[in-house]
């Protein structure tokens, strides 16, 4: 993926709140240093040292090392941190674990240092103790202990990463979360698609459907472990619900015509969707308790891809009612429709950010696709990444990152173009591949794990 240089230097036009939070936190610690960091360039990666967590036997020591790897990888992928090379760590894990020699750590440039202990309890559970120190202040700024079944060790690594992120950045992290997506195999004319789920870093891959039926566009409930998605089971494409706790799948209403483009409401009690009735596609909302469907748009054009604002008062959606595909916002009862996209090209797949301040979208211009964000009133548009085909942004639970998928051109010998998941930081535009065992598309980020 190509990063757009023209947008690289927009950092300073970004929400001042973030800078204020960063500055207010560091004002307690090292004001001068932070000011220098912020004026240095567009990427403010914070140097940090994550020591391996020391075990008390070979098995717990291995888990301690693996946890260190997962945390370092998480922080690097966020684009906000740079891990100090462990080769230059002045102390070994067992020397740090309770009180580090801050004087020696100052030479590493690390602003913060994390370390901990890994052990098995008498009942066979894994216990991880974690501490975070501010090197300049020579003070512990976080100390937490976790226990779980040993096989769940990665989750502890993600929870610790969230604690580090929250303490140092001043906003919630996104590491203890999952991504549901569509795993793709087979040729381009006979593609097999399965629902799959994984941790946000690509670990713990699991398939949810067997590939016998085409499935598309899964979306996570913001409040429960449920997914709504499109399935061709029975031949007609319809919106389904998948309960991750029980594995139960059910159809959301049996209407004449196809239902598609589902997305949960912020309280999880409704699903917005499109219903194609005859040749016309409109936006509807279904109450999940009564299963009643209410029509919100009545325009003869295509109205699809609806997404609620986090306060549920507005809905952004995609329509070609003006002659080309554009983004529109309306009140949640369908009134007051206003177009918000006015740039060059076609706009699609709008998704309101969890903090309500942005709408992410896909843009098609001159045969190229791009992922961008704009304010809900259409101002302040920024293109984050551009390629042959990138599509379907989904917000991280903290509203800072976007995941999306990219697809390369196919050669024409029926080999499908490579499809890959990415995540991108909407502040720094740092972009990372999310590793998947097969081709992958249609990512949807979960809320923070319960």
């Amino acid at each position, binding site marked *: 993926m190509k990063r757009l240089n023209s947008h690289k230097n927009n950092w300073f036009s970004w929400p001042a709140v973030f800078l204020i939070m960063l500055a207010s936190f560091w004002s307690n610690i090292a004001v001068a240093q932070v000011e220098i960091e912020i004026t240095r360039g567009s990427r403010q990666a914070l140097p940090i040292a994550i020591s391996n967590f020391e075990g008390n036997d070979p098995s717990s020591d291995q888990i301690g090392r693996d946890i260190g790897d997962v945390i370092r990888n998480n922080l690097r992928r966020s684009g906000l941190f740079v891990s100090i090379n462990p080769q230059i760590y002045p102390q070994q894990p067992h020397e740090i674990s309770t009180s580090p020699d801050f004087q020696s750590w100052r030479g590493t440039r690390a602003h913060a240092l994390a370390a901990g202990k890994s052990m098995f309890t008498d009942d066979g559970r894994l216990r991880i103790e974690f501490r975070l120190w501010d090197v300049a202040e020579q003070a512990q700024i976080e100390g937490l202990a976790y226990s779980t079944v040993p096989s769940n060790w990665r989750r502890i690594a993600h929870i610790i990463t969230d604690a580090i992120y929250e303490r140092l950045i001043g906003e919630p992290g996104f590491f203890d979360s999952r991504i549901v997506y569509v795993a793709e195999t087979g*040729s*381009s*004319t006979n*593609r097999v*698609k399965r629902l799959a789920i994984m941790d946000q870093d690509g670990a713990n891959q699991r398939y949810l459907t067997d590939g016998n039926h*085409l499935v*598309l*566009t899964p979306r996570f409930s913001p409040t429960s472990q449920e997914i709504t998605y*499109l399935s061709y089971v029975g*031949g*007609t*494409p319809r919106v389904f619900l998948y309960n991750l706790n029980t594995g139960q799948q059910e159809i959301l209403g049996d209407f004449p*015509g*196809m239902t*598609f*483009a589902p997305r949960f409401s912020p309280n999880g009690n409704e699903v917005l969707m*499109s219903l*194609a009735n*005859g*040749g016309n*596609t409109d936006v509807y909302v279904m109450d999940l308790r009564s299963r009643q469907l209410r029509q919100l748009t009545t325009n003869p054009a*295509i109205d*699809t*891809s609806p997404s609620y604002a986090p306060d549920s008062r507005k809905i952004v959606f*995609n329509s*070609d009612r003006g002659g*080309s*595909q554009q983004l529109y916002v309306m009140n949640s009862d369908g009134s007051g429709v206003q177009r918000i996209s006015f740039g060059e090209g076609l706009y*699609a*797949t709008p998704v309101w950010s969890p903090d309500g301040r942005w709408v992410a979208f*896909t843009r*098609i211009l001159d*045969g190229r696709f791009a992922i961008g964000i704009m304010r809900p009133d259409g101002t302040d548009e920024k293109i984050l990444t551009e390629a*042959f*085909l990138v*599509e*379907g942004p989904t917000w991280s639970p903290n509203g800072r990152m976007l995941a999306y998928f990219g*697809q390369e*051109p*196919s*050669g*024409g*010998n*029926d*080999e*499908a*173009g490579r499809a890959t998941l990415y995540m991108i930081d909407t502040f720094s535009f740092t972009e990372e591949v999310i590793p998947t065992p097969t081709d992958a598309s*249609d990512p949807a980020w979960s809320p923070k794990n319960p």
Partner: protein
Amino acid sequence: MRVKFLAATLVTILAISGCNRNADNNAELSADPSAGGAFSGLPSDNAASVPTQPVFQEPITPNPGFGVGTQEQLRAEIGDRIFFETNSSSVDPRAQPILQSLVGWLNQHPQRSLRIEGHADERGTREFNLALGNSRATAVKNFMTAAGVSPGRLITVSYGKERPAAAGSSPAAWSQNRRAVFVVF
């Protein structure tokens, strides 16, 4: 000129010799004794037993599907698809004669129904393309019901960009993929 003349002469000679050979063959056939022709050279009163050999006849059922309106017939007689312009779901003038033939074909095969599949190329977003595929399939259905086909014989389904007919990321492949396909059932 000279070369052409020679060639023409050669063709003429070959043609004549061909005729001669045919004449020889006819003569040989006529000399067959069982034919009893004028050139047999045998006395005509030398009676020979010449019974006919019986031929047994039984009815055969048609090949499964023959004449009943199969997908293969539809494809051979009319074609099983029409194409659309980018982002358009209107049936363009080139496609209309195909649909008119399709109406006639359905009238000839009243026991058959059609599934109309709407497709889009990969140059759009997934959800919008599902809507576009639906619009294309419905445009075909509307054309045919307006021409008298019972709506109950036509069902539509959209595949968006999920089932391309032509592989590859080229304008030629995309134009093959912006289509409605008719499936007999």
